[in-house]
């Protein structure tokens, strides 16, 4: 088998396996979210379907798929139908740049080189931020096209919130770019050789915290879920959606959560590297998976512990605290890097 053909086969295997693994993770993330919600509130959570209720998400998907797809009569129908796709698809392009193991080097599989990344793209971080910006369209268009007051308010709130926090996110990611001298996620992981105290989370601790907080706002999760605040806006931009179109927004939220956790692990926590050099005998994908699981647990922990902020608090934290702080972090990083080299 010639090398281009082998690479094409590897590519197809990776491109099919990765979305399948992530969708399976989504199913279990939803199950664990409900289970944790139960435990946090001294309930038991789902218990009926499968052992300890672990097949609950699959049952939910079956239910959603068999529900009627109601399209409001006064809505902007083509935009209304398009919006779930705009929310769902961008996350798949971010998966392509996420490295889950070593890239390059010697042939390691049947005499061919197997790269543990789908696309070794030079500007992976920028692609991630760009896809985050496209996901805003999904939410805003969903809210606007429904032609319902709750949807419109939810969509506008979500749009303003996501673009505000995207700035802080972008500037804190620039700190990592300065340290690694690259925008490629593969090279950013290469810059974090060694044990866990050599990863970027120690020098970039401010950036890492800002990035994490901003990612909660980007994902529209509690405590920043003003966009779908159910006590005031019914379900925000999702009010008019039903059946599988609603399910796609729901899936997209969790796919995005897993992808963003992967990006945070890669930028600040060494990506697929083991916390100690000698532990690298366990392959990279497993370490990345564990890091993603820990981050998802923290997201859920925050969601069920901290309650929702007010909208003006959210906007002032984003613009008056996180944005200047991330710029200061970038400036300090740049000065230190150019002095120390």
């Amino acid at each position, binding site marked *: 088998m010639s090398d*281009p053909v082998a*690479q094409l086969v590897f*590519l197809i295997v990776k*491109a*099919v396996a990765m*979305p399948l693994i992530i969708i399976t993770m989504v199913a279990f993330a939803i199950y664990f979210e409900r289970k944790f919600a139960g435990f946090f509130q001294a309930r038991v959570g789902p218990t009926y379907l499968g052992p300890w209720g672990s097949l609950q998400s699959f049952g939910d998907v079956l239910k*959603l*798929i*068999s*529900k*009627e*797809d*109601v*399209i*409001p*009569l*006064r809505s902007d129908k083509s935009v209304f139908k398009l919006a*779930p796709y705009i929310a769902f*698809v961008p*996350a*798949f*392009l971010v998966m*392509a740049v996420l490295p889950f193991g070593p890239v390059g080097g010697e042939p390691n599989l049947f005499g061919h080189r197997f790269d543990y990344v*789908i*696309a070794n793209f030079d500007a992976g971080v*920028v692609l991630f931020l760009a896809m985050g*910006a496209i996901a805003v369209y999904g939410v805003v268009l969903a809210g606007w096209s*429904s*032609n*319902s*007051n*709750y*949807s*419109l308010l939810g969509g*506008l709130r979500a*749009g*303003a919130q996501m*673009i*505000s926090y*995207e*700035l802080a996110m*972008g500037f804190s990611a*620039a700190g990592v*770019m*300065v340290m690694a001298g690259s*925008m490629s996620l593969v090279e950013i992981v290469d810059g974090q050789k060694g044990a866990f105290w050599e990863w970027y989370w120690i020098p970039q601790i401010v950036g890492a915290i800002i990035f994490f907080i901003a990612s909660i706002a980007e994902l529209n999760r509690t405590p920043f879920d003003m966009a779908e605040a159910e006590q005031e806006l019914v379900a925000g931009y999702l*009010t008019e959606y039903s*059946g*599988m179109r609603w*399910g*796609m927004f729901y899936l997209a939220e969790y796919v995005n959560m897993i992808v963003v956790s992967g990006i945070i692990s890669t930028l600040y926590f060494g990506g697929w590297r083991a916390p100690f050099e000698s532990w690298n005998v366990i392959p990279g994908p497993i370490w990345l998976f564990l890091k993603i699981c820990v981050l998802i647990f923290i997201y859920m922990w925050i969601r069920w512990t901290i309650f929702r902020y007010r909208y*003006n608090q959210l*906007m002032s934290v984003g*613009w008056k605290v996180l*944005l200047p702080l991330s710029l200061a972090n*970038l*400036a300090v990083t*740049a*000065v230190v890097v*150019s002095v120390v080299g």
Partner: protein
Amino acid sequence: MVEPTIDLLIQFGIMFAIGAAMAMAFVAISHLLSPKSVNPSKGEPYECGVVPKSDTRAPFNVHYYLVAVLFVLFDLEAVFIYPWAVSLRSLGTPALIEMFVFIAILLVGYVYAWKKGVFEWE
């Protein structure tokens, strides 16, 4: 796998196709399985049971617009910062000082917007 640029197009193309195909499959399967019944009151926008009074295509708070304009400004700044951040080591101190001047000019606008109360939501 021939040339880097074409490789990337193939790789992103495949991922995009898989994502879109998955989404379309969900909707298509749901169309096959789901019940369909048309009812004029079902198509009304939800308003807690009240008959909706007016259309939502109405003016809304200008604050959202101001935030969006500021976002465009600062995101453009970020776009200029990224290439600078990547090549800071090879560019050295002059580039560092130039970027500080650039950020300082934008900060003037930021302080102005702050004093004008763009970030105050009531």
